[in-house]
């Protein structure tokens, strides 16, 4: 925890004089830690001369700033109209069932967090999903299963090496 807070302090130093720097700072905190912890609110508010309510208000306004840790991989399924026209409602149902979780939840093994997203700008080859920073096109149920199987395999290999 100590390490994490010093991380936040370094980032605050880096961004506190940037005009309109709160969003870039929050992105940097999320990038470094995987989420924006509640403990970051107070030091950020002090450094930027804002109230804690203002900082909390910004964090809670944006979908990107999750305040709890997420799984090792974040999978976002596009819910927008172009993907709907190509069967994304079925894909959503399949993903939730296959992972056994709803949107905003993480699988018990900590591998995957499932989130909705409104448009990945890949609408000519729908349905689209984003896995971490990679976007995948024309994802049907079987393609989804393949992608998830890739992590599961990868994660089994990693734990095999470490044990």
């Amino acid at each position, binding site marked *: 925890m100590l390490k994490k807070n010093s991380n936040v302090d370094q980032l605050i130093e880096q961004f506190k004089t940037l005009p*309109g720097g709160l*969003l870039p700072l929050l*992105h940097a905190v999320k990038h470094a830690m995987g989420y924006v912890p509640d403990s970051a609110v107070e030091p950020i508010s002090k450094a930027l001369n804002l109230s804690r309510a203002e900082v909390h208000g910004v964090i809670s306004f944006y979908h990107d700033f999750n305040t709890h840790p997420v799984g090792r991989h974040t999978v976002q399924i596009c819910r927008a109209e*172009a993907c709907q*026209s190509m069967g994304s409602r079925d894909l959503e149902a399949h993903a939730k069932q296959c992972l056994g979780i709803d949107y905003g939840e993480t699988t018990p093994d900590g591998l995957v967090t499932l989130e909705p997203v409104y*448009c990945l700008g*890949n609408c000519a080859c729908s349905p689209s999903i*984003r896995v971490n920073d990679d976007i995948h096109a024309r994802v049907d149920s079987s393609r989804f299963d393949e992608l998830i199987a890739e992590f599961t395999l990868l994660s089994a290999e990693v734990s095999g090496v470490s044990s």
Partner: protein
Amino acid sequence: MSIQVFIPQDTTALALGAEKVASSLLQGAQTLGLDVEITRNGSRGMFWLEPLMEVETESGRIGFGPVKLSDVESILSMLNSGSVGTASIKHPLYLGEVSEIEYLAKQQRLTFKRSGVADPTCIESYQRLDGFSGLAKALSMSGQDVVDELKNSGLRGRGGAAFPAGIKWQTVLDTPGEQKYIVCNADEGDSGTFADRLLMESDPYQLIEGMTIAGLAVGANQGYIYLRSEYPVAHKLLNLTIERATKAGFLGANVCNSGKDFFLEVRLGAGAYICGEETSLLESLEGKRGMVRAKPPLPAIEGLFGKPTVVNNVLTLGAVASILEQGSDTYKNFGMGRSRGTLAVQLAGNVKRGGLIELAFGVTLREVVDDFGNGTFSGRPIRAIQMGGPLGAFLPESQWDTPLDYEAFAAIKAMIGHGGIVVFDDTVDMAAQARFAMEFCVIESCGKCTPCRIGSTRGVEVIDRIVANEDRDNNLILLHDLCDTMELGSLCAMGGMTPFPVRSALTYFEEDFGISSRRDH
């Protein structure tokens, strides 16, 4: 001499496996001892052909697509046989000369003329393809002359509101102020749109050039590109190209030795659709919640940090570069009525041949969908087309002969918006789509005004009651009344236009709400 091969690096090509295709081709060529050089170009926007591999020949660039990993071996053996450039190519993915593919040849590309031609990060390639010549012209003109050129072109904002760009610039030019800003709205959130992304990923220097011209014209020395976080590839490419343009002297202090400065920075959004609304975007850039501001004051007078600010969409600023380069008369000769120039149509959803189609205004919706789309992906009949994103109307076949023109679309209570077309086949449930429109507004409303914040929640409930046949007649009256309140009483287009998809679904597809069956009884 090595064989020149082009494989795109834009999001769609990557999402369809372009990276693996490129690395497998390179590895295979090495094994064969074949001298192949791969350029990672941008996409041409023919997304149904991605990954589209191009090979340079004496007679031009020929294409193969869509290339899967399993096709690499046969392409390599064809390259190895030395048959490339002859008329005898028999590969099943062979498309002929790329510039002659009908889908591309039928377009009128101004803003997207360079898209897919070269490595988008290569500044020399950009210059070789006439890049920065618009900026060179602007540097020899007064700010007022540049603004006059823009006014004469008739260019209207391509983000959706279609406000004349020249008038906006004039306001900023005329407003006194030590500090002014150029803000590029790259928060392309509408479903069915990807033109901003394509421009930023396939020709990012054009956006940089357009923004620099804007800065010099109105006297702003700082620009921001507000980019949605859903576009990681564009983010990487913009940062790289801004760095290169700065090193080459096209950005930063003393732009092209003009004695004027223009600094440019990318700022990431954080997943809020409403931040595509210009005042909400400005709040977000200031590091705040993306709450919509009341207008006036106009952003052109009191914008970012309270200073005079030009806020333009990616495509508007991209068009500026080509207008300055080719002259405003050339640009305004395209189009119809008050819609001048070209529209970047984005054909998406359930369609066989989706992609970017740049055409002069005036072509009908049906012509675009029939001539380019080649039917639905599912092979079933088209039932509805949604144009203009999640706030756009659902149009049945009787409306498809409407020409793409801002006024013609407004006349049928629809909108062109950012030019996105989403095609639905006959399996679509229009009551579910109407409900989704309200649900989307619930999730994405900034919450500042009541009609949008509460109206959308009540809208979902009322639609559910109509579909469940609970007191249907009265609930229909209530839904129309609610739509009136949202249209007339909302602060911005989010609440003000959510009724468009809802009402159009009710008007044209009432049977999906169970209404026809009620009349049968």
